[in-house]
C-alpha cells in the first residue's frame, strides 16, 4: 500500500519552481525525488531557501503555482512514497 506525504512550507515567502526563468522546473508531476533533493525555492528577506525533500518517491501533485505567496504550513507538493 503506497502512502502520500504532504510537503509543507517551513518558511513564509514567495515560492519558485525553478532556479531561474530559463531553467527546467526542479520537479513536476510524475518526477522521482530522493531524500535531500531540492524541489523548489522559497524567497524571503531577499534570500532563496531550497525546499528539500524529506522523503523518496514520486510527485503526484504540485499544489502551488510559481511565484505564489506561501505561508508556514501551506502544502507545496504531495509525494507518493516508494
Amino acid at each position, binding site marked *: 500500500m503506497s502512502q502520500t506525504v504532504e510537503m509543507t512550507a517551513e*518558511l*513564509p*515567502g514567495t515560492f519558485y519552481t525553478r532556479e531561474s526563468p530559463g531553467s527546467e522546473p526542479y520537479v513536476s508531476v510524475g518526477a522521482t525525488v530522493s531524500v535531500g533533493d531540492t524541489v523548489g525555492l522559497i*524567497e*524571503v*528577506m*531577499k534570500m532563496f531557501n531550497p525546499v528539500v525533500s524529506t522523503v523518496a518517491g514520486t510527485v503526484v501533485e504540485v499544489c502551488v503555482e510559481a511565484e505564489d*505567496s506561501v*505561508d*508556514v504550513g501551506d502544502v507545496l507538493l504531495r509525494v507518493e512514497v516508494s
Partner: protein
Amino acid sequence: MAIEVKKPGLATSVQDQGRQGNYHLGIPPSGAMDQMSFRAANLLLGNEETAAALECALLGPELTFSEDTQVAVTGARMQPSLDGEQKPLDTVLDVRAGETLAFGFASAGARGYLAVSGGIDVPVVLGSRSTYALGALGGLHGRTLQPGDLLETGKPPPARPVGKTIPSSMQVPVSREREIRVVLGLYDARVEVQSLKRFLSEPWQVASESDRIGYRFKGGTPLNFVPREPPFGAGDDPSNIVDACYPIGSIQVPSGQQPIVLHRDAVSGGGYMMIGTVISADMDVFGQMPPNTSVRFVDVSLEQALQARAERRQRLDGIRAALRG
C-alpha cells in the same frame, strides 16, 4: 559559558537596544526590531533589560550550551525544545550543560528573541552590541550567525525561579491583520488628495523581501502624483525629491508603486518622497509581521502619536513591574 551554533537559522543576529546618535553619518540604530519582546526576555531572566540577545528571524537556530544556564524565548510563536523535548515560550527555562536548544517553525509572528542569563557578550561598537549586517558592524563579526560560531555570555545574574511567565496581555500581538498608525508628511502634498485617501483605506500585504532594512508592501493601488516640474536636484520620476533625510519609520513610495517602511538597519537618506512616518509606538509590531501580513495605514495626529508613545512606555513599565524581583 560558550554557546555553539550548530545551525544558524535563517538570519539570526545579536541585537540589543541599538546605537543612537550616528544616523547622520549613515550608521543606523540597528537593535532588536521588536524592542518590547526583546526587553521582556531579559526581564524574565533578571538580566539588564538591554543585555544583548539573539534575534531569530522566521527559522530559529540550533545551539548547544557548554554550562548550565537559563534562557527565555519571547516574540514570534517559535516553539523551543531542549534535546527534543518541547518547552514553553515567554517563560524562564533551565538549560543543562550539553543540551541542544532548537526551535519549531514560526506559526505566528516573525522574530523570536532568545535571551541568555548574563546576555550575549560581543564587543560594544559605538555604544551597542547590535549587528548591522549591511555595514558589517557590531554583533559577532558584523554578520548573522554561521555554523560553528561560538558565542560567549556575560556574568549571569542570580537564577530566576523556573516558570516565571509574561502575562499574555503584555505580549506583542502576532495577528495576521494589523493597523499601523502614521503621521503624514513631509511630502504627502505630492500625492493627489483622492489617491492619498485610497492609500489610507486599502489593505497592503507585507512583501516577501521585507527585512531589517525595510518593509515593502504590495497589493494596493499605485499613487497618483500632483503634476510638477522636477525641482533642481531632484530626479525625473514623480516620486523623486531633492535628497533628504529618511527618518526610521518613514514610508517612501518609489514611482508610487510599493510603499517601503524603513526600519532599524535603514539607509539614512535619499531622493524618494515620503508620504508619512510610522509612529514610534508601532515600530515593534513590524518585527512580528511575516510576509503576507495584511496592514492598513491609519492617519493620526502628532498628539495621538505622542499619546501612543506614552501608552507604550506604560506598557513596558507594566512588564518591568510584573517581571522584576
